[in-house]
């Protein structure tokens, strides 16, 4: 720093600590609420210290669910979310690697045309074309399937662009050396490109896993069978299902379970996450 400004630094610390407290506050409240029994919330304002019913609440939501409100146990919903997030992340990375490889390492007729078709998807989030996409998926008989949950969200231009950009930075000599040694395209892809892209793939994976896990509108539309509910959309059913006031302690236990996996992914892979985030947006 330019000057030594003790009070300024102290003030900055105070602002940051307050800021962090505000940012954490909603999740703190959820954690606290999930450790109280249901009756607490009828007696007025929520307490700010943990109660003693944590295990009870969590085991209720994970194994039993709320049969009365049509909410299945969240163990199954967590599994569905996991499957969906994994399929989206792995699928996106796989098809993007292949198509980026084709676009960078081959010259063929209609290359630019294909590039533009892929580019178009960048512009259209699911939210703006929900009704017709829903009709297509319904016609293909993919409602209430894992394929229906994930495949329509797999095509994404962002991953393709990232890999294309990365492939462009790989030295020409790599390809020349591989050609001299007699490697074919797929051998080059498998033995040279893939090992070089490991960090990028991992960074992409973190972003795409979170993207897949947090999908909301899409699973809401195409799942009517509760054995395919994902956790993020299942919460909405818990909050609005039934006429009475939601059972806050169970809702909050579910919220914590739903938010935990992606938060853990970010905390444990922070470097990869930051890399993925800043590079996909270039």
């Amino acid at each position, binding site marked *: 720093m330019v*000057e030594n400004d003790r009070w300024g630094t102290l003030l*900055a*610390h105070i*602002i*940051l600590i307050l*800021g*962090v407290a505000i*940012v954490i506050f*909603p*999740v703190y*409240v*959820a954690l606290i609420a999930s450790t109280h029994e249901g009756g607490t919330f009828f007696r*007025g*304002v929520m307490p*700010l210290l943990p109660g003693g019913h944590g295990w009870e609440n969590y085991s209720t939501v994970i194994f039993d669910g709320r049969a009365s409100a049509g909410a299945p146990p969240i163990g199954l919903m967590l599994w569905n979310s996991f499957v969906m997030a994994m399929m989206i992340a792995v699928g996106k990375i*796989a*098809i993007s690697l292949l*198509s980026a490889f*084709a*676009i960078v*390492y*081959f010259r063929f007729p209609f*290359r630019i045309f*294909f590039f533009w*078709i892929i580019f*178009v998807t*960048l*512009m*259209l*989030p699911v*939210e*703006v074309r*929900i*009704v*017709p*996409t829903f009709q*297509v998926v319904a016609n293909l008989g993919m409602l209430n399937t894992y394929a229906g949950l994930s*495949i*329509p969200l797999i*095509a994404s231009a962002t991953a*393709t662009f990232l890999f294309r950009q990365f492939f462009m930075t790989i030295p020409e000599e790599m390809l020349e050396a591989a050609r001299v040694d007699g490697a*074919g395209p*797929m051998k080059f892809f498998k033995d040279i490109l893939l090992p070089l892209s490991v960090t990028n793939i991992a960074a992409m994976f973190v972003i795409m896993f*979170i993207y897949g896990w*947090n999908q*909301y*509108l899409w699973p809401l539309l195409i799942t009517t069978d509760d054995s395919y509910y994902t956790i*993020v959309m299942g*919460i909405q059913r818990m*909050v609005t299902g039934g006429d009475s006031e939601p059972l*806050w302690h169970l809702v909050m236990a579910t*919220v914590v379970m739903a*938010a935990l996996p992606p938060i853990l992914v*970010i*905390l444990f892979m*922070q470097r990869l*996450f*930051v890399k993925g985030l*800043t590079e996909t*947006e270039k």
Partner: protein
Amino acid sequence: MQTKRMTFSSRWLPYALLAPQVIITLIFFVWPASQALWQSMLRQDPFGLRSTFIWFRNFERLFEDTHYLASMKTTLIFSVCTTLLAMSVALLFATMVNRMIRSRDTYTTFLVWPYAVAPAIAGVLWWFIFNPSVGILPYILEGVGYDWNHRLNSNDAMILVVVAAAWKQISYNFLFFLAGLQSIPQSLIEASAIDGASRTKRFWTIIFPLLSPTTFFLMVVNIVYAMFDTFGVIHATTEGGPAQATNILVYKVFRDGFVGNNLGSSAAQSVILMGIVIVLTVVQFRWIERRVNY
């Protein structure tokens, strides 16, 4: 668009490699989008048996519809407030964290994780905090004489969804602002300090202008986020109410299409939204070109 100087040659392999992505794109993106265009010019009878081609009547009707215009205004207010709140808080945090040396990583860790929380969950969290009967904030607000009720008061409802949507976006903006701040050459700041510029003056005359590419980029990203990704925030909390006060455009497409079953109008709204997305994307790419020549 370039390739490598030296390429592989194969007649069929590049097509096979592209096939998975192109097929999925055609089936789930290009085809539905063209369907939306087509349906936006049709009117279906209430039973969905017959449809008549009516050119641009659906669009004309939308722009005469006071609900639609109100929803546009709501979207505008919502996106601008969310963007301003999320960006200004993030910029404050980023400048503060940037002063730190040892504690920088710790603060960053504490500030990035809300990115992982789904918009719908962010909505439910804040909805709980603001809940008129059990929430904490209404209790505090009551103490200062304000009767909070987002179920009846449309301003309260708007504040609720803006706070929930902005809260989640702070971490994203924070990371980009921090990266932007760290790429500003230290020599410029030292030079102005020697000339006697105070910290505040340095911020507004040197740092802020140099950050403007980041700021502009984030502005576009945040507006896109607020307009399209916040569906979950609205749907899980206010459901567009009270009295349409938080009925943003994306939510209205969903409501008219799936609940109201008015496919023609919903498709027309989709087409308008696509137009908005395309304009924003073009703006964003323009910016990228500019930054390359910076």
